[in-house]
């Protein structure tokens, strides 16, 4: 009964989406305020309906109702509650319901907080949002009904893939979807602006918080996924250029570019059509990612069960959503007037360089992801594209982007002076040299590339601090005054500083974790010891234990340094009873500068096991850096100027220097 109610709620949501997609659009065209006013209540009702459907599916999982096919295929009565719930989105159908729920949630939020939007823009944004929702609801109902029944119901379920039974992964998809789908709002704003034919500073200010929110979620989702891969997959890696990872990374790169170009639109009233294009492309890449993962066009470890029929349907959705919006773009964008002019060396110039590099990086990732497909379609000579290819092409694009991120904030709008900026950056240069020298001294013998990575990270970090010091007048006035000025800086300025610092820390972490890692893989007998990275690992014992729905083999390593006991590590291997699959649970010992990482492999006979031990410097920096980026984004989002709800009235209170004439 509950499942049928859920199904019914989805059908109703589809109807509401149709109304919400058509009526306000017509109203906006005719200037009929009553028709336009349909949009917010429709968005709210749609949210309630989709939430009800999601609740019904969740309920079926929680009570283990195996007469629902989806539950029988993906759950098990012995599974812990957390994974019963996360199982809802651990499969194709359920994850789509979550997708649509988040889409409806954003629509509801625009309806709720969009009070200050011009009525036509608001109506059109909500209508576009509803059209996207209509497409996905139709897809869900026609090809992937999550509420399908099965008769006779099985005694117990198939269980969720044990790799996915993990707290990190329980929250990873919702985060990622909140990011992907959040870009839909920027997309809706872009399409609405194209229909209106008007893009101005106010538009950029409205679109930025939504993009920023999506960006924060994407960052968190990607970081969580990477963290999960690191500790759960058990071979010490954190990023594999897998199609699914790429699918989340491309929108992130474009969203990053969009955040930066929206600043230019807001402050300088130029780069409009480019910004619109980025908003369209960002969400398009989210859609393409969804399509690639679910259509079976690309195979991947985390791919959901693929089905060509669904593929055709999603492709059709893509054609309508992306093709339609790009067509609109080709038609309407050329008539947009470019605003203020600027020199190549200027804040705008720096932001454009950022945009170019980010877009190129996204293009490179897209090409690499689609390469197997292109090779096949065009019958080209077969060339392999794997992790090494991505590293060779991607890293050289990111290096200059990071260097520029250090310089850009010091350049003035319109016409910057590279000489002055560089003069102000002399301390950053000295700091970079010192830090790189320290790294050379500490890690001599590793590849030169690793020191380049550290130098770039140090440059961004020190340059960002220099910019902050300049802003608060550190050294030019008493420290008390500087602190007061620091307190008075707008949150968006702090957001930029913290995010760029976070990026610097992350880059250093990635460099250390990929290039300074030592690994040791060997067969060990109980009592054996091995030395890795200056630590002695003694293999004490292996015990057999039992978990709720799995068996455990747990090893104990005593780690010694200079003869003293340093820590004890207990990696596990789990065998899940239902799916008969094994997972490794690495033991990780974290300190601020490094991770020790131990994995118990297979039994090699008798009292011997294969073990893997890694010494990975700077790994925690990646997670700290990601947290800083999330924090920085959140700070910027909380800036009064961008606060969803009351931005424009506050504008006159701001210092005139940051405000171009005629931006209002």
């Amino acid at each position, binding site marked *: 009964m509950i499942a049928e109610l859920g199904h019914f709620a989805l059908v109703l949501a589809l109807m509401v989406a149709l109304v919400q997609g058509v009526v306000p659009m017509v109203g906006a065209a005719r200037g009929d305020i009553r028709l336009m006013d349909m949009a917010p209540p429709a968005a709210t009702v749609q949210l309630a309906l989709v939430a009800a459907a999601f609740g019904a599916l969740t309920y079926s999982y929680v009570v283990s109702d195996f007469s629902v096919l989806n539950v029988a295929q993906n759950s098990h009565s012995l599974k812990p509650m957390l994974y019963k719930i996360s199982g809802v989105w651990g499969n194709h159908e359920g994850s789509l319901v979550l997708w649509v729920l988040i889409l409806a949630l954003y629509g509801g939020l625009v309806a709720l907080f969009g009070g200050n939007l011009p009525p036509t823009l608001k109506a059109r944004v909500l209508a576009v949002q509803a059209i996207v929702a209509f497409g996905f609801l139709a897809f869900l109902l026609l090809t992937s009904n999550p509420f399908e029944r099965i008769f006779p119901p099985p005694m117990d379920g198939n269980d969720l893939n044990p790799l996915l039974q993990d707290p990190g992964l329980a929250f990873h998809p919702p985060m990622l979807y909140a990011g992907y789908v959040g870009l839909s709002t920027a997309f809706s704003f872009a399409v609405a602006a194209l229909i209106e034919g008007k893009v101005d500073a106010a538009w950029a200010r409205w679109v930025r918080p939504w993009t920023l929110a999506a960006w924060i979620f994407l960052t968190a989702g990607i970081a969580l996924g990477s963290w999960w891969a690191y500790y759960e997959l058990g071979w010490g890696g954190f990023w594999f250029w897998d199609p699914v990872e790429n699918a989340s990374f491309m929108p992130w790169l474009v969203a990053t570019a969009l955040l930066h170009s929206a600043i230019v639109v807001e402050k300088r009233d130029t780069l409009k059509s480019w910004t619109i294009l980025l908003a369209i492309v960002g969400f398009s890449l989210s859609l393409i990612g969804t399509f690639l993962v679910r259509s079976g066009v690309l*195979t991947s470890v985390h791919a959901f069960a693929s089905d060509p029929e669904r593929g055709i349907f999603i492709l059709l959705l893509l054609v309508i959503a992306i093709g339609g919006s790009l067509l609109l773009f080709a038609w309407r964008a050329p008539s947009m007037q470019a605003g203020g002019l600027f020199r190549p060396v200027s804040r705008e110039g720096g932001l454009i360089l950022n945009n170019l590099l980010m877009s190129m990086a996204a293009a490179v990732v897209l090409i690499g992801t689609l390469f197997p*497909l292109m090779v096949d379609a065009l019958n080209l000579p077969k060339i392999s594209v794997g992790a090494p290819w991505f590293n060779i092409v991607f890293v050289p694009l990111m290096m200059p982007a990071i260097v520029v991120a250090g310089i850009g904030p010091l350049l003035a709008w319109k016409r910057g002076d590279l000489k002055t900026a560089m003069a102000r950056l002399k301390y950053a240069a000295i700091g970079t040299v010192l830090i790189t020298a320290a790294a050379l001294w500490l890690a001599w013998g590793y590849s030169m590339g690793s020191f380049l990575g550290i130098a770039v990270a140090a440059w961004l970090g020190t340059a960002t601090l220099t910019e902050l010091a300049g802003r608060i007048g550190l050294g030019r006035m008493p420290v008390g005054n500087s602190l007061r000025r620091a307190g008075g800086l707008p949150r968006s300025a702090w957001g930029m500083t913290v995010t760029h610092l976070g990026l610097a820390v992350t880059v250093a972490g990635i460099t250390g974790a990929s290039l300074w890692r030592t690994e040791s893989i060997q067969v060990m007998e109980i009592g054996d010891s091995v030395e890795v990275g200056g630590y002695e690992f003694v293999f004490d014992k292996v015990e057999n234990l039992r978990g709720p729905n799995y068996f455990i083999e747990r090893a104990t390593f005593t780690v010694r340094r200079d003869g003293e006991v340093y820590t004890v590590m207990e990696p596990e291997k789990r065998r899940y009873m239902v799916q008969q699959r094994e997972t490794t649970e690495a033991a990780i010992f974290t300190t601020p500068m490094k991770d020790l990482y131990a994995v118990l492999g297979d039994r090699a006979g008798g009292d011997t096991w294969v073990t893997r031990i890694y010494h990975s410097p700077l790994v925690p920096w990646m997670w700290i850096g990601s947290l800083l980026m999330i924090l920085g984004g959140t700070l910027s989002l909380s800036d009064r100027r961008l606060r969803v709800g009351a931005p424009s009235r506050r504008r006159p209170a701001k210092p005139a220097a940051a405000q171009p004439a005629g931006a209002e």
Partner: protein
Amino acid sequence: MRRLIFIVPLVVFAGFVGATGWYIMEIQRDSQRAPNIIGAGEQNKPVPEFELPPLLDDLPGIATGDFGGEVIMVNVFASWCIPCRAEHPLITRIGEEGIVPVWGINYKNKREEAIAWLDELGNSYERIGFDLSGRVGIEWGVYGVPETFLIDKSGRIRFKHVGPLTSSDLKETIFPMIDCLNKRPQAETCLSGS
């Protein structure tokens, strides 16, 4: 002229839709082949001319002359490839149960990493060729690891699977194919779908 620039994104997207649409049609037309389409270049051709040194001291490498006489499964793997890890237990079981001899091509991999990987996950390959540069992989038409080939008794490539094997692939496609290649003298009649 200026207007043309704004059409570029649409054109690029149209290309994308064309390519993927064609690809999906292809998959649908022959769901047996999905999504692991056999590249037109190598199917039914003799294995390319090549010679690979052994990866391990106690297992031989692979050369063109080694094929022929029996049906062989060739599995291309690398320790850096995650899907390989997913399919490896199946590959190992096929070798252990003697369903068909499995030969490995270790693709673009450091020797010690590959050895450690096999130590950890098990090794039932009868031969392993060590293809550090990936040259031989290109000869074979490898463009994504893992890939699995079936070679008939006359040394011709009869089947290719791109991506990790699943047990349903084995049951539905690979095993019937092996069976057919073993039984029928004219391997041509064994093309996928039969």
